């Protein structure tokens, strides 16, 4: 027997009867979008870092790697379209959440002190925007070569007719301001991951008393590894280790 419920139809009933309400309409669902898109970007970042490190194996290794990617359109465009979807979802949702969170406290505190959070967590939007601006410059610089003439050269291909990644990277990082831009962007990325790489577990509900500490310390370790891995290339070139 069902007892009639005379209350107003609720969000739950609305959700059961129409398509009006779905997970992504809730703040929790939006955080899950942040976490999953962040995870995709995070996976890319690791792959990209490993790719970059091939510069230490000499021009043929990294130029050949670039050639393989470019001559496998499925791989290249598959990765690019996944990344595009992830970055758009991540950025659009981030802007929505930041606006919502600012509106939730219309009158600011005068004296409030933070006791638990950290700088990386408080500056997620700032580090995110820094990364976005950097990505635009980075694509223009090394992928499309449209910033040549700003103090470094850009060659399309090497003697094997492969993209001359090695030459372009080495020439760019001999220019101090260019190295500085990359170093700053990498620091922003590492800070973003310092918070993001553990925060995503909490957002997705993949937390447990027993594993929380491990997740937190692994996130810090991965953020550090990404920092060192990416910085190795510009620093090595700048100090003439790779030339």
């Amino acid at each position, binding site marked *: 027997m069902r007892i009639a419920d005379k209350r107003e139809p609720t969000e739950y009933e609305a959700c*059961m009867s129409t398509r009006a309400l779905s997970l992504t309409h809730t*703040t929790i669902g939006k955080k899950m979008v942040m976490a999953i898109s962040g995870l995709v970007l995070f996976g890319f970042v690791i792959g990209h870092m490993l790719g970059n490190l091939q510069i230490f194996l000499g021009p043929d290794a990294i130029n050949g790697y670039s050639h393989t990617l470019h001559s496998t359109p499925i791989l290249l465009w598959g990765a690019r379209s996944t990344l595009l979807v992830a970055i758009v979802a991540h950025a659009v949702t981030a802007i929505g959440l930041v606006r919502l969170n600012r509106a939730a*406290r219309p009158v600011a505190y005068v004296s409030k002190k933070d006791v*638990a959070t950290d700088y990386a967590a*408080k500056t997620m939007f700032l580090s995110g925007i820094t990364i976005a601006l950097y990505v635009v410059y980075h694509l223009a610089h090394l992928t499309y070569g449209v910033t040549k003439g700003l103090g470094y050269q850009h060659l399309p291909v090497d003697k094997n007719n492969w993209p001359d990644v090695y030459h372009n990277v080495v020439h760019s990082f001999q220019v101090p301001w260019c190295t500085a831009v990359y170093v700053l962007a990498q620091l922003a990325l590492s800070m973003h991951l310092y918070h993001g790489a553990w925060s995503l577990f909490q*957002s997705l509900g993949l937390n447990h008393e027993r594993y929380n500490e491990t997740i937190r310390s692994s996130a810090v370790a991965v953020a550090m590894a990404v920092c060192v891995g990416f910085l190795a290339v510009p620093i090595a070139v700048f100090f003439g280790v790779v030339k």
Partner: protein
Amino acid sequence: MKFKLNVWRQANEKSAGGFEKYDIDGITNDHSFLEMLDVLNEKLIVTGKEPVVFDHDCREGICGSCSLVVNGHVHGPQEAATTCQLHMRKFTDGEEITVEPWRAGAFPVIRDLAVDRSAFDRIIQAGGYVSVRTGAAPDANSILVGKDVADRAMDAAACIGCGACVAACPNASAMLFTAAKVRHLNLLPQGQPEKDKRTIRMVTQMDAEGFGACTNHLECEAACPKSISTDFIGELNRDLASAMLRARADRSFTGG
């Protein structure tokens, strides 16, 4: 002891409000923070001024009525305690003390330091209950609850609904409160029949009240007078995702 107080005064929700300075003397080590404000109010009343309005009830740390951000600390500088449990011996003689109300759009100021926390009541009304048949009391132990589950549910149920989590959160998010209330019932056998419905309704009510989203700063857990763990927030996220997936599946069965 003497103190220089810097207290937020605001006539009503609509008016602007601002800080007023008061000098107070004759306070002892044994005065609680609220008793110190009582002393201030008695002085204000005899000089024909309006007393400072602040919320309080039990004054023994169990009702969740008291609030206040004291020198930038939610419920004052003492860890895992409400403002009514804070004593003036925690301060140094002559110290300047700034007192602000909870700040959140969903908690409008009623007057001075008192804010309207009925948004929390509406979240509870949306699903913070279990439906039971009335009649004779059921036999004891007819529903078995494992000790570990009972303990976890009790940890969540320790929430006194004071709103410190919202006050402390950089985003004014009510996730710790909602998570504690949802998980308290979702953990127990009595809460199972309405589990999904409760989760979805309480979360959508929380969002409708205009609280912010959680960004895992963990300020809430640090400010909570009952030290409720942010683990419950992750568990709420999990419960919501599975409730929504099941609701979607049910809908496609019923053709809705």
